[in-house]
């Protein structure tokens, strides 16, 4: 059975039913809005992580020593094979794709386009690089296929080239000499974004090795089943890498991208904060009114020997009751919207077309909210946390009640 103090707190909450209902409704609406915003934030996290990771960086990327500072495509892993094996042994890894990059001048006839050529393992690359699945004409590379290239449509257009055309790739070799190789276009990728299309140029990893004279992979892109385990995967991966090689997360690889995400989240959290502040002030006002109305009663409790901290606890118990009720209302009001957001998403096609790109990443125009067990804890945290915060001043006021003065008040 609940203690008398708890029963007293619960019954006190019901004393002024209309005020309590309004408070609970206010907390509930605040909770529901905060839930929706948080669902959006989490959905955005997931979207950024997914599109960022599958646009080339991977959730985690193993890079050579010095790459973090110089971002030099000529750097190679100390032991690419060992790193690859290590990456594939980490639980939750969906794909680990080795790559070697080179700055290459593609040419056909008199037309030239500078690109960053990626030498890949065609057997695993499509699982790590979603644009590999966007081949609009021709096909993707076959595993082990040499002398073949897949380019973006914008690159092909600038070269005035088409499928089965042969183009020349020229790069600086290991010793500084100019090296060239011939490639046949087997596939053209069309993403809808020229910026992205210009970044697509994939050949067999061995072709890049041969062209540059640099042996081995320059990176291993690791794609995870669950983006939330990015840090955990990096932590498991890092100690097992070859000497000098290190693991970087997608957000470290794309700081501008991460900055954009943080800015978006900060904006929506600020909006949530403003909403909650307004709710909090309303609840604080209602709670203070409830305490003021009961000044004489608090004086009596004090006269009976109730200490200040116990009085604070009493007001907090009432706040927790209000907060729990508010959280329940918040869930009832917010869940249908969050569920719809999570299942149908928010469609931005009207404003941005079928997709838009930022920092070399193509975003889907439909943003899906996140829905999971976290909503219950979040609603409880927001509801109870907000009412406890709102009750700080009323609780302090109750605890400071001067019993002699308050008892002089008319009953």
């Amino acid at each position, binding site marked *: 059975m609940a203690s008398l103090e708890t029963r007293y707190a619960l019954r006190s909450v019901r004393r002024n039913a209309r005020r309590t209902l309004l408070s609970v409704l206010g907390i509930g609406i605040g909770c529901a809005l905060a839930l929706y915003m948080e669902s959006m934030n989490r959905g955005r996290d997931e979207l950024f992580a997914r599109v960022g990771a599958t646009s080339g960086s991977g959730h985690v990327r193993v890079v050579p020593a010095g790459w973090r500072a110089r971002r030099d495509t000529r750097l190679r892993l100390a032991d690419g094979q060992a790193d690859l094996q290590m990456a594939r042994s980490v639980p939750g890894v969906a794909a680990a794709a080795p790559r070697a990059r080179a700055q290459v001048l593609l040419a056909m006839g008199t037309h030239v386009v500078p690109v960053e050529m990626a030498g890949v393992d065609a057997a695993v690359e499509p699982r790590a690089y979603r644009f590999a699945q966007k081949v609009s004409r021709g096909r993707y590379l076959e595993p082990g296929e040499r002398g073949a290239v897949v380019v973006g449509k914008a690159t092909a257009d600038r070269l005035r080239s088409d499928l089965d055309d042969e183009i020349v790739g020229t790069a600086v070799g290991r010793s500084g000499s100019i090296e060239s190789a011939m490639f046949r276009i087997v596939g053209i990728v069309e993403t809808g974004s020229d910026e992205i299309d210009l970044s697509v140029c994939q050949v067999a990893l061995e072709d890049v090795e041969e062209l540059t004279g640099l042996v081995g992979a320059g990176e291993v892109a690791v794609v995870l089943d669950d983006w939330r385990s990015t840090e955990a995967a990096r932590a498991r991966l890092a100690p097992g890498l070859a000497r000098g090689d290190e693991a970087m997360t997608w957000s470290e690889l794309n700081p501008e991208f991460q900055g954009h995400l943080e800015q978006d989240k900060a904006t929506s959290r600020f909006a949530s904060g403003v909403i909650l502040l307004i709710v909090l002030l309303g609840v604080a006002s209602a709670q203070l009114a409830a305490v003021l109305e009961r000044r004489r009663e608090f004086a009596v409790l004090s006269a009976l020997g109730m200490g*200040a901290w116990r009085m604070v606890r009493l007001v907090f118990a009432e706040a927790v009751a209000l907060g729990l009720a508010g959280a329940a209302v918040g869930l009832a009001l917010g869940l249908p919207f969050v569920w719809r957001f999570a299942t149908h998403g928010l469609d931005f096609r009207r404003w941005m077309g079928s997709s838009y790109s930022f920092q070399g990443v193509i975003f889907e125009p439909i943003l899906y909210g996140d829905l999971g067990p976290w909503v219950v804890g979040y609603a409880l945290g927001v509801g109870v946390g907000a009412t406890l915060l709102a009750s700080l001043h009323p609780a302090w006021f109750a605890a400071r009640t001067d019993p002699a003065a308050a*008892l002089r008040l008319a009953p």
Partner: protein
Amino acid sequence: MTQPVLVARQVTKVFRQGKLEVLALRGIDLEVREGEFLALVGPSGSGKTTFLNLAGALDVPTSGELLVLARSIAALSRAERAELRLRSLGFVFQAYNLVPVLTALENVEFVLELQGEGATRRRTRAMAVLEELGLRDLAGRRPGELSGGQQQRVAVARAVAARPRLVLADEPTANLDGENAEILMHLMRDLRDRQGMTFVFSTHDPRVVAHAVRVVTLVDGRVARDEEKPGEAPHEIVPGLGKSSGAARV
């Protein structure tokens, strides 16, 4: 000679209202011994309630020395005064001041819970007190469902449930009709006689004063008269509700 439960020496109390100073007590000298049944009388504004508030450790004197159960009120912190009230003092208010959302039984239990009594013990104790005061059948009712007289009896039950050594009652019969006032005074007197509790109560009502063993008259914040009724038989403590020691003589 029994132990004094309350000793006041030149106690003054000044209330400040802005720049105005109101001298409510102008030097009270009083000693209340254990087991007394003392009435504080005097006109309105004479300082009765102020003195009861000081005696109940609800407030502190401006100057002078006030010892309640041998502890100087002025030297105690807020928390210590609350503890003193909880462990040793009982209050009965003019306006009953029961907690409206709790039943009669819960109101009585509340003090025991504050003292840390377990649920079963406090319930048994609270029920026994209510029964002693003839309120057993009303235990489940909330204050709003009780008459004024019944509420004040519940308030007395709450005040004495934890067996305080000193019970302070501020105009306890002021809101009661004559019959209920009589019942209440008999109850309080009976508790004092059987348990040796010390009662100090303020009143304007001559019928209530008639029950007092000692009558202290305050005028303008000073003790104007202190009369003890002659031939008042020493009370006996009978087993039951009460404590087993500390028999007092008035």
